[in-house]
């Protein structure tokens, strides 16, 4: 992971790769619980990488890093759990 995030260019390549992976998961499988969870999980990884490296929250005081990472985690958890509850209750 350190190799992939070492420079902005490498991270860009990695983010593009993650985006294409999420697209492949979506294209290869009609929206379902597993595909939806994987797609949102990949989105959370991408968003975290943008926050930590492009926004440089990794160099920010602990307070800011914690707040921004908590937002990222909460967004992902909300969508994944909300989607799981929705799909299981409508089967």
């Amino acid at each position: 992971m350190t190799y992939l995030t070492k420079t902005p260019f490498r991270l860009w390549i990695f983010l593009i790769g993650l985006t294409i992976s999420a697209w492949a998961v979506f294209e290869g499988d009609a929206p379902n619980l597993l595909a939806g969870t994987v797609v949102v999980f990949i989105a959370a990884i991408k968003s975290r990488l943008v926050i930590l490296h492009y926004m440089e929250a990794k160099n920010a005081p602990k307070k800011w890093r914690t707040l921004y990472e908590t937002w990222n985690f909460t967004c992902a958890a909300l969508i994944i759990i909300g989607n799981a509850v929705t799909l299981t209750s409508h089967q």
Partner: protein
Amino acid sequence: MKTIDTESRIFGKKMPGTEGIWTFILIDMMVFLLIFFVFIIERLGNFEIYQQSQRHLSATWGFVNTLILITSSWMVVEAVHAAKLKNSIAASRWLKWAFLLGGVFVINKVIEYYIKIDAGYGITTNSFFTFYFFITAIHFLHLLAGMIFLWAYSRSARDCKTTLSYTTELENVGLFWHFVDALWIFIFPILYLI
């Protein structure tokens, strides 16, 4: 296009921007988190409508726009780095490219809106389309605001104004632009994929 520095270059080591922009973005983040929460709750109660409506969206638009924003985010990182090195010409050039990619996003979004409205889908069609237009339009306004700053700071850099205060302000612009990118990273799966 070449990167400004060598491959071995690492990211900066200090917190970029000012405390104010970090606070502003955090407040904005909370607003979007609340919107996402309401969307998820509404989707739970009206799943059939949401599922049927989502089929009328083309995920390809969202996918392309994700690639565009990620790429423009990287360009802004390069611009900030160039400004720190007092390389005004490179900073201006990177900002201009980021601005142009923002412009491609705008064109994509306008075409997407036109197709939807032409097909008879509007903000009042149903709850899903209300969220679709509302969320994407708010994001679109953030993007337009970011583009104005990218353009303005590109011009300032061109005029060789890469002073210390310019660099700090550009870091603020960069932070906002990356936030617009991070938001879209979540908006795309919520509206188009799940």
